[in-house]
């Protein structure tokens, strides 16, 4: 017969307290581990060279000791070399490029995605299931395979010429190949399919065309999903690294990630960590702001992508 365990109120409360301390303690520890790199990045960016190179490292800076010289130095003009006349870290140029690329890619992606998701969710056509399966299968293929040929294709299109590439050509090269996302088509199609058929039939009876139905009924209903797609896709340009570096001929056409690495090493091979961390902070902050603004949509969207699999 099962034993009965007797515990008094005090012991019960103590057990609950201990269990809570253990759980919260563990979670807080992980949270600190997650936050430390951000803290270290920002802290270092506010230190002077002497502080950065002090051993053991300084863990805390009072507000009055913060130095913004690392930041202001980023915008100083380079005196000599191939980048003479440009800022050391042309953050605003990179930002402008990144925002533009992000905007154009997202605009293109959302258009191709909405149209295709509509066809898959609402229209009947021969080979629909096969085509959809083929599209899904492409998600399995590592992107590196495409990049090789795409680079040649961009060349063929005349968008990449070492001597004559214009800003427009660079922008085209960076955006057009990325106006595709099978994953978002899949995601949006799920949302579209939840819209009851009755609405469609009712619209048909009223003489609404398919396109108008898509525009006036489906898009507004699926707006939360579309917004999520827009936000997630926009963040992509911040991480783009290899492609922009491949298809642009000049530094001033490139995106934030490209500017980060390689710079801040002087001719003797010494890295200026303060400037490096200041640049990293500048690149990180807009993303964090974006995240906190759209926290719910981002986490919902990313979370849902996991549930489907």
């Amino acid at each position: 017969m099962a034993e009965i365990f007797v515990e008094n109120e005090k012991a019960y409360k103590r057990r609950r307290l201990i269990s809570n301390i253990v759980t919260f303690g563990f979670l807080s520890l992980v949270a600190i581990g997650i936050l430390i790199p951000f803290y270290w990045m920002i802290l270092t960016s506010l230190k002077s060279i002497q502080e950065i190179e002090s051993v053991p490292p300084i863990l805390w800076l009072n507000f009055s000791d913060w130095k913004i010289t690392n930041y202001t130095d980023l915008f100083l003009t380079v005196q000599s070399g191939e980048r003479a006349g440009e800022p050391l870290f042309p953050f605003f140029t990179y930002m402008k490029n990144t925002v533009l690329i992000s905007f154009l890619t997202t605009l293109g992606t959302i258009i191709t995605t909405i149209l295709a998701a509509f066809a898959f969710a609402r229209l009947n056509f021969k080979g629909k299931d096969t085509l959809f399966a083929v599209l899904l299968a492409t998600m399995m293929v590592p992107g590196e395979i495409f990049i090789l040929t795409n680079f040649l294709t961009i060349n063929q299109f005349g968008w990449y010429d070492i001597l004559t590439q214009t800003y427009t050509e660079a922008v085209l090269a960076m955006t057009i190949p990325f106006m595709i996302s099978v994953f978002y088509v899949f995601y949006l199609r799920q949302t579209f399919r939840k819209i009851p058929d009755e609405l469609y039939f009712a619209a048909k009876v009223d003489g609404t065309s398919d396109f108008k139905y898509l525009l006036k009924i489906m898009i507004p209903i699926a707006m939360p999903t579309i917004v999520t797609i827009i936000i997630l896709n926009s963040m992509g340009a911040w991480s783009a690294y290899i492609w922009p570096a491949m298809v642009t001929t000049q530094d001033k056409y490139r995106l934030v990630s490209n500017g980060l690495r390689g710079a801040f090493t002087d001719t003797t091979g010494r890295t200026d960590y303060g400037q490096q961390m200041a640049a990293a902070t500048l690149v990180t902050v807009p993303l964090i702001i974006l995240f906190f603004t759209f926290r719910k949509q981002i986490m919902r969207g990313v979370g849902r992508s996991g549930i489907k699999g």
Partner: protein
Amino acid sequence: MEKRNNLKAWLYLAPLLILMGIFIFYPLINAFYISILEEYRPLAPGGATATGYTLSNFARILNDELFWQAIKNTFVVAFISVPISILISLVIAVSLNSIPKLKALYQTVFFLPYVTNAIAIGMAFAFMFHKDYGLINLMLSWLGIDPVNWVGNVATWWAQMGALLVYTIWGGLAFKILVFTSGLQNIDKQYYDAAKIDSASKWTVFRRITVPLLSPFILYISITSMIGALKAYRTVIGLFGERLGAQQNSMITIVAYVYKYRSAYQDVSAISYAASAAIILFFITVVFSLIQGVVSRKRVHY
């Protein structure tokens, strides 16, 4: 009705399919084609040239020590970081699920790595791992451990790999925690009540209730993160820059190997080597997906 819809459907699909044709399907097939071209020079003045078909591109890759270095590095990253990060994020998700308050706050903090720039944070990590000025060695010294040269010029392979693994795991937790927490919310709370009635300990509940009921999510996460880890690249760039390691190429990965040739496309066969390496990577990911597909059929149904 059917016929009209047919035409209309293709019109709606046209923008996506045209772009995919140019930038996905054609390059996919072309990659295989490029990989078997002999002395291929795609950017030769006056047009692309090749002298014939050959398998020597693959042979050259497979005889390249650097390629095997890349395979080794990539596999070590994948096989160590994926299981560890899955386990940690499972425990975190279960803990998150059990707390009455502050859940949203913790979730937000844990999600931060997902929305940051891999290169920027990689640089922050590199500096954290700095032998003299870094935080990691300072913390180790509190535990009485001598400073380790993690990412400096003379760092050992395992030290570099250690730093890379820590960064990879750190960056991979966010997505997994999010997926597992939403997975946990899908599990009927009654199973946990039933387990309590059945006198199950916390560990038993985790092992015999939570993990099996979460198994579809765990499988999904292991496939995606395995494939993700096999494509490791930006973490290496973030930590080590274009040198791809504390020593030249010491932390090179398969993807980095593919890209190694990118500045040399004018050269004979460079792009063919890159294509061959990319195709090998492709087959490795396919094999992993298949293995995991078989596992899922055997272990993940109820």
